[in-house]
């Protein structure tokens, strides 16, 4: 009994450490990659070498800032919203497999649980948008709700395709069943999953809920200091979650060219960061979609492709 408890604590602590470090690394990657893609250098001073401590410095700065709650706001909801937005991603970190056996908690229905939890994240955004007592916040929240409800569908459908192919809902199980030729077979689903994942975490070019040129800063307009930092952390954690899910479902997780059992965690991390890089790359390369284009892409492109992929998966599964 004692050993089980200690092991459980270790796993939870590991997930927590990953939750606190990986988003920071992705954030730094975003700072630097985005800067260089725009012909800039990005942060260079904090921490000495190429500004590696910039995000730590940002965190210190955010902690020192004044905590402003608008007078007309619903104060309780306003204060709770960042936690509600961040908590789902923290829970997801517990379920993502890093290597063979290296997982916070291997569940029989891991994939399903992850999708359910990620879907709950929208509640935090709605809380923030409504309680701010600001019309731009409210507009951002409404846009966000419409976007997340719409993109939930291709997100789940494309994940269902790979679950069907693997014949299991367990995340480590899917990685076990994965074969390199699935890269081709499941490619449309992978693209759909990645794009709708971008929309789920409201990353550019799907950042209409924030849309700083139209809605000030959308549902984050009224947030300052630590609570704003929590929302930022949620965004970067969201990148890690979507990249990790794409890796686990479509890129073979811990399977690498050699030494899967010893170096599995390394392959996973390499793939996660590669996908995160693509997330950042897409942000720099494309302008924000218009609201109607957003819904059009979802319902006329992603959903049909996801459904066609389901049919394809079923056909191949039956034939083989």
């Amino acid at each position: 009994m004692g050993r089980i408890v200690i092991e459980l604590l270790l796993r939870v602590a590991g997930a927590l450490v990953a939750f606190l470090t990986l988003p920071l690394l992705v954030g730094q990657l975003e700072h630097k990659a985005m800067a260089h893609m725009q012909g800039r250098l990005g942060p260079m001073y904090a921490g000495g070498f190429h500004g590696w401590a910039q995000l730590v410095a940002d965190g210190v700065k955010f902690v020192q800032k004044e905590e402003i709650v608008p007078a007309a706001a619903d104060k309780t909801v306003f204060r709770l919203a960042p936690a509600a937005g961040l908590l789902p991603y923290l829970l997801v970190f517990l379920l993502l497999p890093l290597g063979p056996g290296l997982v916070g908690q291997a569940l029989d229905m891991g994939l399903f649980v992850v999708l359910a939890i990620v879907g709950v994240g929208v509640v935090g955004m709605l809380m923030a948008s409504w309680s701010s007592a600001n019309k731009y916040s409210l507009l951002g929240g409404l846009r966000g709700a419409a976007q997340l409800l719409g993109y939930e569908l291709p997100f789940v459908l494309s994940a269902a395709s790979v679950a069907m192919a693997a014949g299991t809902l367990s995340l480590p199980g899917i990685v076990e069943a994965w074969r390199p030729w699935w890269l081709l077979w499941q490619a449309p689903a992978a693209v759909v999953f990645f794009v709708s994942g971008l929309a789920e975490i409201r990353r550019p070019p799907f950042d209409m809920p924030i849309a700083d040129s139209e809605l000030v800063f959308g549902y984050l307009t009224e947030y300052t200091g630590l609570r704003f930092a929590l929302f930022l952390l949620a965004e970067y954690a969201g990148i890690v979650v979507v990249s990790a899910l794409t890796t686990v479902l479509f890129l073979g997780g811990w399977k690498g060219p050699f030494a899967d059992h010893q170096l599995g965690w390394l392959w996973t991390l390499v793939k996660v960061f590669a996908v995160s890089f693509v997330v950042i790359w897409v942000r720099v390369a494309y302008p924000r979609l218009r609201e109607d284009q957003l819904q059009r892409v979802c319902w006329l492109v992603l959903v049909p492709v996801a459904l066609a992929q389901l049919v394809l998966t079923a056909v191949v599964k039956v034939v083989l």
Partner: protein
Amino acid sequence: MRGGGLAKGLAITLRTMTRRAHTAQYPDVRPDLPPRSRGVIALFEENCTVCMLCARECPDWCIYIDSHKETVPAREEGARARQRNVLDRFAIDFALCMYCGICIEVCPFDALFWTPEFEYAEYDVRELTHEKGRLREWMWTVPPPPPLDANAEPSKEAAAARKALEIEA
């Protein structure tokens, strides 16, 4: 092809990333400014004759000039004593100046120059009025004029000086 633009966008950003950044690391690395940069205006006091052209042409009246007349005793017996303007104060208020450069254009005696120096921010707006001592100091930062084109006519001053030398020799 439809969707080709998407790939092109990605390609452009990736190519930019592999190239060197354009960022100048300013406080660490001094910027290399061209000689004609409009940073601050320097006064070559010795050339100024207090003709007041600059002050009158200045669109926002940011040049302040005070002077008095001085009588220069006659150089030789029987000649008339001459009067000369002596510059007491020459100040440019850079809080007002809009860096149009008209004063430099109109100066008939080459007393005003552009210099590329730009680091003269102050905490108090009143300190932005540079008196003549400070304006004279800026002269040391005026870069030499760029060389003429290979087959260009030499400047009038240089031609005159060379002629004088030839006559002497």
